[in-house]
């Protein structure tokens, strides 16, 4: 997984299966970014084709943590299946979903 910082926006690009292990890695990197001053997180799932319910529960925990800090979380690069899954699971209620990383970064920066 790759991490990039643009001002107070952190971009985490996932790679592979978001399950317990993959989700924990996302959480670890996300919390590290929050601890070092990131206000907004963009999760780019372009290279991820599969997510399970454990991975989603970890993403919800990350979202709650970001919301506790009055921050922003956005997703981009979702496959249609993952997009639909996130919407059903309620992630889209509190996190924005954008088609591209550029749109996501712009979205959280202007929020």
């Amino acid at each position, binding site marked *: 997984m790759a991490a990039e910082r643009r001002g107070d926006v952190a971009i985490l690009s996932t790679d592979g299966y978001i399950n*317990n292990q993959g989700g924990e890695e996302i959480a670890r990197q996300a919390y590290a970014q929050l601890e070092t001053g990131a206000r907004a997180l963009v999760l780019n799932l372009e290279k991820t084709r599969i997510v*399970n319910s*454990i991975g989603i529960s970890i993403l919800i925990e990350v979202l709650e943590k970001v919301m506790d800090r009055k921050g922003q979380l956005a997703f981009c690069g979702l496959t249609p299946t993952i997009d639909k899954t996130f919407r059903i*699971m*309620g992630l889209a209620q509190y996190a924005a979903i954008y088609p591209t990383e550029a749109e996501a970064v712009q979205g959280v920066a202007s929020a």
Partner: protein
Amino acid sequence: MTDAPPAASPRLSVLWKTLEEPLQGTDAPLPTRLARAAVSWTGARRGALYIRDKENWVCAGLAGADAESLEPPESSGAAAIAPREGISWVPLAAEGEIHGRLVLEGLSSEDAAELVPFLSVVLGGLLGAHRYSRQVKEADFEVRTRLVELESLYDFGLSLVGQLDLASLADEVLFRSISLTDAGKGTLVLFHEDGRLMLERSLGGQLLEAQEFASWRLPEGEAVINNAAASVPTAGARLTSCAKCLAVPISVSGRRLGVLAVADKESRVGGVLDFTPADARLLSLFANQAAAAIETARLHRAAIEQERIERELELAAAIQREILPRSLPEIAGVELAAESLPTRQVGGDYYDLFPLSRGRLGFLVADVSGKGIPAALLVSTVHAAVHLQIDEAKTITELFTRIDRHLRRYAATRKFLTLFFGLFEPDSGRLAYVSAGHNPALLVRRSGLVEALGSTGVPLGMFPGASWKEETTTLAPEDLLCVYTDGLTEAVNAQEEEFGLERLSAALGGGREKPVRELCDRVLADVAAFAREMPQYDDQTILLLRRT
């Protein structure tokens, strides 16, 4: 931070100021914050908050140095409030249910008597609300997860419509199956009808060698759960790379198309969970949908292949139509008619005529072994050989030897053919012929007498070094020669009777005074009438020659 409510009394004001930060903070889970607030407000040295997990009390929050060393509460709730050796047990209750227990150390008897009931109600209410909130969240998560499953099955069904790429289809099935069962890994394999491996897809590592899947004895139409896969074989196969597995066959009408297997169901707290009957039902649903889609894709590919073959056959038929003479030569003293009816688009029969010097006529009828494209290719080779060699050979037997050699050199497959070749001199009526294993040609004399011109050697291409004998006979005016292939005499009717040589002789004899073109059509019509609707499996060719 919200504004503090107006203090009803100095003590409440102190309580609020003490509780505000621990309760509203987000730096630790609520049980920890409650333990800290209780210690801070009561002035206890340390405290530990336990919550119930099934039958056990589990420590969920600590406050103060070495708080983890505080002993857990007893299971009975009756003596909970009684202090013992400086230890106060505070039941945290709400709505008639004890949600947790707080163990505080260092309170005096008086403080404990005054503060514990208050803490019990306030912190019990907060902890109860927290627990209910978590339960609601978990229930909501569970409902949404089931909805994702249903939607996934629905979407998967839709995505299968028109999905003819087996690799994409396999990925879709595998990914959805692993995802929805929370498995850590999975494998999908598909087989050809003869059992050979067609395709293998894995995520997280292969569960078995692909060829081992082929012999895996999964019961037909049933999912197999093995939650001890590391030590117990799964339907006869030892899986070494997983702890628990769930496998289903992918079948259509009892025919095994492949296997779908997932393994090692994940847990949020680590470790591997057992697969459940609900997981098995879900995987079976995916396998059933996948089977239908895979079968559709397979049939589609078969249809494309069939279409390709038909196009090839049509092309071959067009080539063969070019090989057969478009028209018959006009030779003085000879009346000719010929017809060839292939049973497929392309056949293995061939006839040809060659006007030669001094008014002579060469003619042949051949029947190659096999049918379809291979037979048509051999016909093409024979056609080329005859046309190349006919001007070179001095005798008919030499022509046969040259054709035989040509076939051995150039024919792609070891096939053979029967061939009748005649060289007719209209002026004298002399007919020289060689028959390489061909059906006897029938010579119908003007009187109606029928003579058979039998084989004079073995079929071409059959034995190396073979030779053929040339025979001669003479046709008187109005005598009729019929050379044909066995598709004519071996045409069968519904009673499995063959048309036979006798019926052919009778048909020729009965119509021997008719023009040969008319007679040719009549013979073929007689054969068709005899066979009626019975499908015929061999080409039918007839060549008639009458000396006028």
